[in-house]
C-alpha cells in the first residue's frame, strides 16, 4: 500500500493497574491503514479504546505491541511533525486568552505575528469565537471551550488531523455547521482526518470510511466505505444511501455497546 499516510500493525495497548489491580487490556490488536487525504471516522462503545487508539497513533503513548508508521517513518514516543490532535478533554490553557490559546502553537513555531493574527482571526471567526477573542477560557461555556481547542489545532494546518469527539459538547445545529467547516478545510488542505465520534450520523455524513470498534479490548469489527463524493456537505443526510450506512453502523454497534455495558 503505497498511498498509506499512516499504518498501524498489530497495535495493542495494555494499562498497568495501580497496586494489586489487574492490568487492563484496552486496545487491539489493531491493523489499519489511513489513506492519504481520506476522512476516516471511528465509532465504538464507551470505554472501548478509541482515545487509546488516538494516543498511540499520535505518538503520545507507546503501544505495548505492534508498530505505527506515519509518512513512512516509525512513530515512537514522540508526536511526528504534521500531526494535529484535538483531545477529548478540555486542554485549553487557562492563563492565555482565547486568541493567545489559538495562536499558541504557531507562536512557538516562530511564525510572524502578523500571519498568526490573520490565521487565528479567520479560524476564531468561523468557530464562532471572534467576539470572545480577549476572554479567558474560564469565561467560556463548555461548548465554546471545545471549539477553542479545535481552533487551536486547526490553525496549525496539520497533514494528519486527529479529532477525539470534538463536537461532544455542541448542540446539533452547531455540530452540523462545524462538520461542514471541517469538510471544507479537509478539501482545501488535502489533509488526512481521523475523527472519533459517538454520533453515527456524523460519522456517516462526514467520512469516506467508518471504522467500528468492538467492546474493550477494542478491535476493528467493520470498515464501512461510504463512497460519498469529495465535494459533499451535511445535505448528504438526505441521500437514500445515507440511511443504509447508518443502519449498518447501528446494527454492528448495538450489540457491542450492550456487551460493553453488561461486562464492564
Amino acid at each position, binding site marked *: 500500500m503505497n498511498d498509506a499516510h499512516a499504518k498501524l500493525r498489530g497495535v495493542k495497548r495494555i494499562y498497568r493497574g495501580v497496586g494489586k489491580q489487574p492490568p487492563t487490556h484496552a486496545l487491539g490488536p489493531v491493523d489499519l491503514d489511513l489513506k492519504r487525504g481520506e476522512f476516516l471516522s471511528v465509532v465504538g462503545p464507551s470505554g472501548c479504546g478509541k482515545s487509546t487508539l488516538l494516543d498511540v497513533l*499520535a505518538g503520545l503513548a507507546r503501544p505495548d505491541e505492534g508498530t505505527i508508521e506515519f509518512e513512512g517513518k516509525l512513530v515512537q514516543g514522540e*508526536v511526528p511533525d504534521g*500531526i494535529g490532535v484535538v483531545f477529548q478533554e478540555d*486542554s485549553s490553557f487557562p*492563563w*492565555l486568552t482565547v486568541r493567545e490559546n489559538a495562536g499558541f502553537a504557531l507562536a512557538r513555531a516562530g511564525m510572524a505575528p502578523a500571519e498568526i493574527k490573520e490565521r487565528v482571526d479567520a479560524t476564531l471567526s468561523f468557530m464562532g469565537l471572534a467576539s470572545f477573542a480577549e476572554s479567558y477560557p*474560564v469565561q467560556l461555556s463548555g461548548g465554546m471551550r471545545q471549539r477553542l481547542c479545535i481552533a487551536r489545532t486547526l490553525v*496549525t494546518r496539520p497533514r494528519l488531523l486527529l479529532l477525539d469527539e470534538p463536537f461532544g459538547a455542541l448542540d446539533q445545529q452547531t455540530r452540523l455547521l462545524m462538520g461542514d467547516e471541517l469538510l471544507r478545510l479537509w478539501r482545501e488542505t488535502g489533509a488526512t482526518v481521523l475523527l472519533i465520534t459517538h454520533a453515527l450520523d456524523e460519522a456517516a455524513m462526514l467520512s469516506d470510511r467508518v471504522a467500528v470498534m468492538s467492546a474493550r479490548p477494542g478491535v476493528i469489527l467493520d470498515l464501512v466505505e461510504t463512497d460519498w463524493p469529495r465535494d459533499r456537505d451535511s445535505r448528504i443526510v438526505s441521500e437514500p444511501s445515507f440511511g443504509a450506512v447508518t443502519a449498518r453502523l447501528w446494527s454492528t454497534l448495538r450489540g457491542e455497546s450492550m456487551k460493553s455495558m453488561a461486562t464492564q
Partner: protein
Amino acid sequence: MKFDKLLVLAAILGVWQMTSLLVGVEVLTPPLGTFAKIGRLFADPDFGGHVWETTRAFALALVLSLAIGLLVGLALGADRLAAEVGEPMLTAFYAIPKVTLYPVILLFFGLGFAAKVAFGALHGIIPVALFTMAGVRNVKPGWLRAARAMRLTKLQIARSVLLPAALPELVAGLRVGTALTLLGTLIGEMFASQRGLGYLLLQAMERNDPATITALALLLTIFATSASALLLALERRLDHARVVA
C-alpha cells in the same frame, strides 16, 4: 487594600512593642528605639559600605539561586525518574547544617567574596528547586499532552507551559529562595569578614548589643519583604487565569 496593609503594620508594631515591654528592652528593643538605631546606623559613614558589601554578594548569590534552582526544579518536576532519583538526595543534603560545609566551601572558593556568594546560593537553590518541582509536578497532565502534541521542545514546554501553569508555586519558591539567600549570604559573612551586614550582626551579637541586632533584623526583613512584594506584584500581572477565577 492600602488600609489593610497599614492595619497589619500597626498590628505588628503593636505586638512588637508589647513583647518588648513584656520581656524588657534589654532583650528586644522596641520599635521606636529600633528606628532611632537605624537612623544612627545610616548616619555612620561606614554603614553604606557594609550595605554595599552585602548587597553585592547577595545579588550574585540570588541570581545563582534562582537560575539554578529553577532549572533543577523544572528538570526534576518534568521528569519522574529524575525526581525520584534526585529529590531525596536534594532534601537530605539540604538538611545538613550549612556551617559544617564551611571547610568545603573554603576549599573550593577560598576566603572572601566567592565563599559568601556560595553560602548564599547554597541556602537558596534547594528551596527554589523544591517549590518549583512541586508546582511543575502537579501541572494538569492534559496541558502537557497538548504541548507534546504541538511538538514543543523541552525548553518550550518549560517556558510556555510549565512556567505559567505553575506560576504561583514558582513565585512562592522564588520568594522563599530570595529570603533564604539573603540569610545565607549573611551567615557567610559571619564566618570571615570585616565588612557587610553579617559582620555587623556578628559584632552586635558578641557585644550584646540588642539595639543593633534588632535594627539589622528589621532592615533585612524590610528588604526581603520588598523583594517578596515585588515578586507577588509580578505574579499578579502574569497570572491572568487566577485573576479571572
